[in-house]
């Protein structure tokens, strides 16, 4: 079962970490977690994929939904720590420009 860890950093950035597979079972929970964070006023969000074993098109859909939700609230959603499987999904779907992977959580909003 995929677990989600979430926290807010002292600079006000929400970090969500899916642990396991980000598939059709887990994707709806990622969507609602991001929506909750944004509703609570945290519109800058990093999804830390360093412990995400694999992601499918449902997981990708949840990230794009989260991106839209965060941007509508004046923030952004960025992904960090992607493993080769997630990198391959981004390449095969030509979404690397929409969801540009950042090396890690610390650098995801660095300089913004």
């Amino acid at each position, binding site marked *: 079962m995929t677990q989600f860890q979430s926290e807010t950093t002292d600079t006000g950035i929400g970090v969500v970490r899916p642990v396991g597979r980000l598939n059709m079972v887990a994707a709806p929970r990622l969507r609602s977690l991001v929506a909750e964070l944004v509703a609570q006023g945290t519109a800058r969000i990093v999804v830390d994929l360093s412990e995400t074993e694999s992601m499918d098109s449902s997981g990708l859909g949840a990230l794009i939904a989260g991106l839209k939700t965060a941007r509508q609230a004046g923030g952004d959603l960025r992904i960090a720590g992607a493993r080769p499987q997630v990198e391959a999904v981004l390449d095969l779907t*030509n979404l690397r420009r929409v969801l540009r992977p950042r090396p890690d959580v610390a650098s995801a909003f660095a300089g913004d």
Partner: protein
Amino acid sequence: MRGGASHLLQATAGPELLEPVHDLLARLWADEPGVDERDRVRFEIAVAEVAANIAEHGAGAGAARVSLRLSSSPDRIQAVFEDDGAPVEARPERPPAGDAERGRGLLLARAAVDRFSYERDGATNRWVLVLGDS
């Protein structure tokens, strides 16, 4: 040199299909340690997308049973899914808009492997995915 491993899964179409599919893939890789990571990743992406499609659409369209056979030979790895769900629209898929949240699954599967085919055979949907010489 790869041997001639073959693994079969028979399951119910639904989200509970997904974990056993990953377990079956793990067994294939245990038999085929020579497959490089890039190929493993691409094959898994395609297999997972077809499994998710059957799990999602099959369950809603009356599919009860699904089988998956993974096999390998010296130059190729192959996955064959068969399910008894409703026929799948075999329309050519165009990439959705960059901000679309759905509609990428089978396109992603097609892009990940060297050969992807779908056919309706009587009351059965048959999906064949091949990486390597086809």
